[in-house]
């Protein structure tokens, strides 16, 4: 039995608590509201699951790892590659496992797309177009790191390393004072495929699309248009939860983590992978700043 404490607040923690409770071999401890890290560390737990804003993740991971606990946390784990690397090192020295969340690696559409590329359905990949929009977090927000992260990771997972990144970004105040942020990124992969990624903060919902082309064809996906149910009520439209699965991506991710903890398999997303995606995000930011492409060689910034 793996004992897990879920830290954080808001809908993410609720969702995690609900999902953990459905997985056998897991016991959730410290279910009360606003469980602090101090309290969690005093409990008899094996793993802490952190549902925290980006700026708190690094500190919590360090403290939990010091206590010998395994950690589950949404990627990115820190605001810079440097800090993330030092956290990964600390976890490894403490011999605690760091499991990172990833919205694409456990999403069946993205897993399937990677398989299609792997088995040669598309032949030599040509141009890969991805769009990604998620609601803006309340606090700190880094478009490349928090939205682009999953897309950059997926590209590397499916196609290998990135050779060069060029990015443009706009930030503008809306009439209501909120901030609009939108970016267009072109990536040249080491296998020479060209990827185009559109990133934005949405005001409401998650929007994800991809269009992958290669010498033998094209594979397209639009999350919004993939919902099998559309409901129209006289009192207004009812939003049916997107992604109807027997096991949703979060559940798949959590089960993979538990299997790994029980030494029954490995997780497909490691801190090393996470670092690569972070480096691409940093390169994109750097490209925005200098107005030129930024080269990545063997995963390192030049």
């Amino acid at each position: 039995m793996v004992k897990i404490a879920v830290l954080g607040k808001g809908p993410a923690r609720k969702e995690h608590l609900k999902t953990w409770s459905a997985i056998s071999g897991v016991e959730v401890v410290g279910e009360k509201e606003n469980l602090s890290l101090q309290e969690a560390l005093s409990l008899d737990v094996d793993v802490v699951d952190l549902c925290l804003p980006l700026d708190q993740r690094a500190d919590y991971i360090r403290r939990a790892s010091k206590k010998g606990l395994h950690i589950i946390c949404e990627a990115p784990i820190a605001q810079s590659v440097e800090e993330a690397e030092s956290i990964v090192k600390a976890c490894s020295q403490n011999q605690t496992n760091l499991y990172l969340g990833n919205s694409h690696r456990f999403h069946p559409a993205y897993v399937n797309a990677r398989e299609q590329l792997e088995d040669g359905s598309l032949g030599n990949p040509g141009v890969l177009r991805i769009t990604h929009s998620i609601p803006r977090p309340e606090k700190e927000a880094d478009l490349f790191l928090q939205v682009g992260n999953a897309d950059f990771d997926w590209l590397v997972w499916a196609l290998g390393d990135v050779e060069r990144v060029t990015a443009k970004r706009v930030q503008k105040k809306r009439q209501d004072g909120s901030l609009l942020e939108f970016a267009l990124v072109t990536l040249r992969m080491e296998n020479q495929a060209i990827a185009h990624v559109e990133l934005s903060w949405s005001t409401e919902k998650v929007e994800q699309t991809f269009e992958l082309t290669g010498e033998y064809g094209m594979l397209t996906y639009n999350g919004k248009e993939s919902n099998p149910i559309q409901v129209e009520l006289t009192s207004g439209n009812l939003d049916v939860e997107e992604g109807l699965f027997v096991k949703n991506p979060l559940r798949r991710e959590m089960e993979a983590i538990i299997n790994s903890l029980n030494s029954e398999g490995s997780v497909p997303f490691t801190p090393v992978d996470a670092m690569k995606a972070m480096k691409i995000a940093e390169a994109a930011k750097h490209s925005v700043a200098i107005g030129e492409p930024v080269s990545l060689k063997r995963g390192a910034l030049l």
Partner: protein
Amino acid sequence: MKIGIISFAHMHALSYATYLLQHPEAELVGIWDAEKKRGKEMAQKFDTNFYLDLDEFLQTDVEAVIVCSENVNHKEHVIKAARYRKHILCEKPIATEVEDAKAMIEACEKSEVILQVAYPVRFVPAIQQVKQMIESGQIGEVVAVNATNHGQMPGGWFVEKELSGGGSATDHIVHIMDLLRWILKDEVKNVYAELDTRFYDIDVEDCGSVLLELESGVIASIDPSWSRPATFPTWGDVTMKIVGTEGTIAVDAYKQYSLLYNDKDGRIQQKPWADDMDEGLVNDFIDCIKTRREPFITGTDGLRTLEVVKAAYMSNELKRTVTIER
């Protein structure tokens, strides 16, 4: 009004000829073509005269010509037609070199003839509606555009650099570029492009991704790839996602179609029922000559878009951002 067509090398000539015949005031009086067989066939099809000698054709009282020759030949044909004082509608791209485009514009100005460039997408009702929505401020201030002009690989002279001047970047950057300039009343500041040949065994590029900054600070990307598979249900697309401070418009210019699942030919096909944009273009050209007004799409519009294409090639070569010099 007597109108002629110079070359059927570009297949759009067929569509232009059709709408000339339909126009109550226009008369298709002749076709010149360097390829005798094609020219004769087309003259027969459209019930008009065929000329093998371009000077002979231009010495007639034909008032205007539509130039649909291979890209590299636009220069020679436009300048010659201008010298004979004929009004000109030139297929896009205006030319394959910036200097050529400038010489063409100058020749037309000197002869005081109209030079219009064929950017028919401006006549798509959805595109005109989008322009109005943006001008009326419905999405606030525009800050970014993610656009595509995809196509299937056209083959023929389009993939022969000596005739086309280049591949998909030459073919497909200009339409979107013209829409961006026209809708946003803005010019390009700088260009970054990744171009490559990844789909076909051809000597020109067949795909790419172009990033732009406009003078106003708007950012834009254009995907000009010939990446539509042979099984794609139509020739390609023109799409734009236009992001403003108060909203977003997504436009798919050729969305007005019904889908045919065609067992007879073993494929799925888009069957458009939209207004034909080429009809709007041809009618506007005739109206422009009739009323002696400034053309709706000028030689300068052709030149500015060509400058972006050339900057994209240079950027791809240098792997650097290229600032446009005007």
